[in-house]
């Protein structure tokens, strides 16, 4: 039923795919050139045949016994056409042309519009030229990064590291100059938001701003990279990609009580600068590769992060949806290619066949979902382990009481049962028997105990060192190519294998070595090893590009999960390759990549636009200035809490529930939100419970991820609900009051001191004199308004505090606060 209308597809192919083929041909468009260049089979002819002929004449269809998808068969013919259908050098004697031109009937393609004349002409030219089958040319991004020399630049004084050479060389070739360096305050705010996701507190700011030694900035960067807040900030980027959530999605959207372990694993991995290749291996096959490593086992939860319809009645389809999701997400996230486009048909734009798709899916085919007991208590910090012992302090006496109560009636129950038992029968007393033997009051007591035990067990359960992970089925199910992606129309069986274009162009089954012990198949290890091999053309490029994107606001490839034809071309291909090589050379160290990028002068430029440069390169694709970056929803919330001094730095553990208004809760069918302590609700946003049906409003308003689709890049919309949330929302208003309290406490009663300190806390700078005067006037006027406000009667001192809070509220609403200059 689902695919019943897919017959529309071939029609679509005709109307949309063909112009692309024609424009991609190698025919020289210049008519003055008398030399006709060679028509390439791979580049020109095969795509035409693929679009118009394969649906009937391919290995899995072969109408008339004719197979066209292997070039050799062109010279062999089919059942009806005894001889070759292509005669080298002679289009007129080639049956292929006769059928296409309708000289032989039925005219091909059958029951479809004929091929356009220019396409037939191309095929004729190709035959005339000898019908040569050329080698597949694998261009970008299918060939490994090249070793580019660091380019020379004129203005070598500007260069801090090779990144600057690559960027500046491009700029100089276009007669552009890099922008001036950003002011130290701007740089300080930038690098704090970028690396740790909160602004510096006054002490931190002072320590950098007062350090005038040449190494001050470098020292700051190293300090921030070593800061545990770094993992909370950069882990979030990865969680976006793998669509992390703490709930299942769909109707019930029930809690995944152990999902947080994956989130914590990601944070720990970033903080420990886990090599990226290892990070990938753990998520794909940690159970096989590092079976005694608690984190590596937790990591396989990667393949369980998709949304899941618990109430589905079509379990086969649900599992197929799951396998699709695992395949698509792995392709997008780890390979930067839209592999998912090849689920129903060969990729329309990229070199990914439908067979490639199912070969890749075959790596996940034996997957089963399971729980794993974690060695070393899951690497949990003592605070989390204490939750278990805390629950146990309740559970131990409660269970004891329950036992005692049971024992009290065991003998009586046994005696009663023995009476009715036949001689020789073994008498067993069940809990029910004992329960029945109890008088009313003890039965009630037992029930109460049972309830209390249940409560403490449910409190304890999420903290237990157990993780939601994957393993493999013993009997490996077969993997089929699904025609049109439909589970009901399986095609031929496929074996696990790599996307051919990324593996040198050859279709080869993967070499799979089952790990000793035999619990799993070794398939995922094979996939992980291939993705992380130094020869894989895309893995390193994709990751350095993601890192670049977060630092600079736009990737070298602006479509970070689509390096294919539909994605953007790299603006600096040489730099991208150089970085990718550097990444692998440095042992896939993410922190070293940060260091390289953040210490470059390219990173340290002003965000100011320049009238000359903006004409030549309006979108700053060449990086002649730093892009102005808006704080993400999480960074915004964390920054406000940091400024108010209330951010709770506690790390790890199950998701927390900041208070939500009733109107927000009522938008779902189920009011599933918890209640956390005040302290917990002030923790960093990365620890807020991620419910798929109920995103945190401030994060949602500021373009948070939808937690269902992989999110390679946050959009930055400017919509009025953002203004409403930040200007009228309870969080922003109540935190402004806390900021004002902090200001009064730190700066004393003098209004000028208060204004200066408010600026220092929020914008990390002092106000100008005119700003001071402007704000002073505002505060005086606002104090008067508060005193006149009959709805909220107040005295002078409170009115002053309210006015200051109003000012702090304005500050956190300014563009200067929300954007990084």
């Amino acid at each position: 039923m689902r695919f019943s209308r897919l017959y529309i597809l071939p029609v679509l192919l005709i109307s949309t795919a063909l112009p692309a083929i024609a424009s991609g041909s190698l025919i020289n468009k210049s008519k003055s050139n008398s030399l006709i260049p060679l028509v390439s089979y791979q580049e020109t002819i095969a795509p035409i045949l693929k679009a118009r002929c394969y649906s009937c004449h391919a290995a899995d269809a072969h109408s008339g016994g004719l197979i066209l998808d292997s070039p050799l068969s062109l010279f062999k013919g089919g059942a009806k056409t005894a001889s070759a259908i292509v005669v080298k050098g002679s289009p007129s004697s080639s049956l292929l042309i006769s059928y296409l031109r309708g000289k032989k009937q039925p005219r091909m393609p059958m029951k479809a519009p004929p091929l356009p004349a220019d396409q037939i002409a191309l095929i004729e030219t190709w035959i005339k030229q000898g019908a040569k089958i050329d080698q597949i040319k694998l261009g970008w991004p299918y060939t490994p990064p090249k070793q580019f020399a660091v380019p020379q630049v004129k203005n070598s004084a500007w260069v801090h590291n090779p990144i600057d050479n690559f960027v500046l060389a491009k700029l100089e070739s276009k007669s552009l100059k890099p922008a001036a360096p950003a002011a130290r305050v701007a740089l300080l705010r930038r690098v704090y938001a970028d690396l740790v996701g909160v602004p510096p507190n006054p002490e931190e700011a002072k320590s950098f701003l007062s350090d005038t030694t040449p190494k001050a900035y470098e020292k700051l960067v190293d300090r921030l990279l070593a800061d545990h807040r770094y993992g909370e900030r950069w882990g979030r980027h990865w969680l976006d990609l793998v669509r992390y959530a703490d709930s299942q999605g769909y109707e019930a959207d029930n809690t995944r009580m152990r999902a947080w372990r994956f989130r914590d694993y990601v944070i720990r991995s970033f903080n420990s600068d886990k090599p990226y290749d290892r990070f990938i291996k753990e998520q794909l096959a940690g159970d096989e590769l590092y079976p005694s490593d608690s984190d590596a086992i937790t990591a396989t939860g990667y393949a369980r992060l998709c949304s899941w319809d618990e109430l589905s009645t079509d379990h086969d389809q649900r599992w197929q949806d799951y396998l699709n999701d695992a395949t698509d997400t792995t392709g997008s996230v780890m390979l930067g290619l839209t592999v998912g486009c090849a689920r129903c048909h060969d990729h329309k734009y990229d070199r990914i066949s439908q067979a490639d798709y199912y070969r890749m899916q075959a790596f996940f085919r034996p997957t089963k979902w399971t729980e794993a007991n974690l060695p070393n208590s899951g690497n949990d910090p003592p605070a989390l382990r204490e939750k278990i012992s805390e629950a146990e302090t309740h559970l131990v006496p409660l269970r004891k009481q329950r036992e005692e109560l049971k024992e009290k009636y065991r003998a009586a129950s046994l005696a009663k049962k023995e009476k009715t038992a036949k001689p020789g029968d073994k008498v067993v007393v069940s809990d029910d028997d004992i329960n029945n033997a109890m008088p009313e009051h003890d039965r009630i007591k037992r029930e109460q105990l049972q309830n209390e035990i249940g409560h403490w067990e449910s409190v304890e359960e999420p903290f237990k060192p157990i993780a939601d992970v994957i393993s493999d089925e013993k009997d490996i199910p077969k993997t089929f190519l699904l025609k049109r992606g439909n589970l009901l129309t399986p095609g031929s069986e496929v074996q696990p294998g790599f996307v051919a274009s990324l593996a040198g162009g050859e279709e080869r089954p993967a070499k799979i070595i089952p790990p000793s012990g035999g619990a799993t198949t070794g398939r995922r290890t094979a996939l992980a090893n291939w993705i992380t091999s130094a020869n894989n053309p895309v893995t390193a490029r994709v990751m350095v590009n993601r890192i670049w994107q977060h630092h600079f606001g736009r990737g070298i490839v602006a479509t970070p999960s689509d390096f294919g034809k539909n994605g953007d071309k790299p603006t600096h291909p040489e730099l991208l390759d150089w970085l990718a090589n550097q990444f692998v050379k440095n042992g896939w160290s993410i922190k070293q990549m940060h260091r390289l990028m953040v210490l470059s002068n390219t990173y340290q430029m002003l965000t100011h636009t320049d009238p000359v440069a903006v004409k030549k390169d309006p979108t700053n694709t060449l990086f002649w200035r730093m892009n102005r970056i808006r704080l993400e929803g999480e960074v915004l919330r964390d920054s406000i809490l940091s400024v108010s001094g209330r951010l709770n730095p506690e790390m790890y553990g199950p998701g927390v529930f900041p208070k939500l208004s009733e109107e927000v809760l009522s938008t779902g069918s189920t009011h599933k939100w918890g209640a956390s302590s005040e302290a917990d609700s002030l923790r960093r946003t990365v620890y807020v419970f991620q419910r798929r049906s109920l995103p945190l409003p401030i994060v949602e308003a500021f373009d948070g991820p939808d937690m269902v689709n992989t999110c390679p890049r946050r959009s930055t919309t400017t919509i009025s609900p953002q203004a409403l949330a930040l200007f009228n929302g309870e969080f922003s208003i109540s935190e402004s009051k806390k900021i004002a309290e902090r200001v009064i406490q730190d700066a004393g009663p003098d209004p000028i001191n208060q204004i200066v300190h408010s600026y220092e806390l929020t914008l990390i700078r002092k106000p100008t004199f005119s700003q001071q005067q402007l704000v002073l006037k505002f505060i005086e006027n606002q104090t008067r308004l508060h005193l006149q406000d009959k709805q909220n009667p107040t005295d002078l001192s409170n009115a002053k505090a309210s006015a200051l809070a109003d000012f702090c509220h304005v500050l956190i609403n300014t563009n200067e606060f929300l954007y990084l200059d």
Partner: protein
Amino acid sequence: MSDEIIIRGSQHFQAAISRREFLSRAGTGFGGMALSFLMAQEAEAAARSGKARVNPLAPKTPMIPAKAKSVIFLFMYGGVSHVDTFDPKPDLVKYNGKSLNTDVLKGVGEIKTFGGDSHAPLMRSPFSFKKYGKSGIEVSEIYPNVGACVDDICFVRSIYGDSNNHAPALFEMNTGSILQGHPSVGSWVTYGLGTSNQDLPAYVVMTDHRGGPIGGAPNWSSGFMPATYQGTVFRSNGTPILDLAPSDGMSAAEQRASLDLLGKLNEEHLQANPGDSDLEARIAAYELAYRMQAHAPEVVDISTETEETKTLYGLNKKETEEFGRKCLLARRLVERGVRFVQLYSGGGHSDDTWDAHGDIVYNHGMHARETDQPIAALLKDLKRKGLLDSTLVVWGGEFGRMPISQGGKGRDHNPGVQTVWMAGGGIKGGTVVGSSDEVGYKAGDTPYHIRDLHATILHAMGLNDLQLTYLYNGRNQRLTENGGQVIKQALA
């Protein structure tokens, strides 16, 4: 290629094509698509690339001429039984109590239920049906007021979907996909057409007072599109939009003074950073929010409506008050240029929704009483105000219900067929399109998939479902995936 334009996200054909090619194709190869629409898309592309900031919600010219300018989607959440409302089944009376097998229905196959007994007997509708209007279309006794409007309505009795489970079925009706994460119909319409009133949200959703639908916000989310196109939840009382008023009762004077200071500081910042369209846009967003703060409460302030109008919608009766108010607000919203309004009847779970597993008389009786008069009032009111021609009204749920009984009095989910009706802009009233089979188990004549309904809604709004695309994940995504079939018989 100096004249190359990159159309990311909003692209309709390929990632990058030459400007000349782009425009020439628009003129020839893809006839029917108005050049002005392309220009709007181009402007958006320019906005995305930072060249000039264009409001993505600025009104756009439709691709094809269309009467409807707004949509009101009346969503009967929980799943309405077609055979008890707008699809009379004499055969169900005849076979009442019999098993649903090949004697009754040829090729019926294995009966798939969601939770009920698949061998349960067929159950006739407990309600009687009556002919209405010039067209003589039969309507159940629980919908007499809507019955009186049949000559304005086109009933499509052969809509089918793919899931018999609430959440995926809701997602499919709202987003075209049973999987979570796709943009909703309202998002597509808003993306394609923008909105004419910038002081109100372009796309408004009003949930039931008993709660939201299963799945929550993903039902009106913009999925992989920017948040600009997502639905805004509007409450029918008090402050209609979240955070529309300051949370701590800040006075208007205090708020204005704060906004003025903010404006000054932002302006100063902008002068130090000239030419940054993002900064300008954000300054504008605050003023827009401020205007919204003034205009949105005006929409829910129905004191200016006459008593006659309020009575028409049933605001004087407890049963009809809630949904009546939403219907009246829907009229007020489209009157003010809001592009897409979705109202939910039913919220939360079980009998608080149309999910009549236990007792069709109790459940559907109650929900029909709540909605019949308000819906009829909406159609009449739109008509007399001259708005019906420019408003497409759609009525339906996430699936139909089973012709066999569940537990004797209820009915289970049935995605095999349901009735969806449309009225207003561009719709041919007094018509019936398609049919269910003899007993209403599956679609019979001219079956239409939910995506066909979506194609029809887009078409009525002047959008072509194949051409309205958004590039995500390397693919030109569409509401109807590979295209739907416009239900031509439904069109005037």
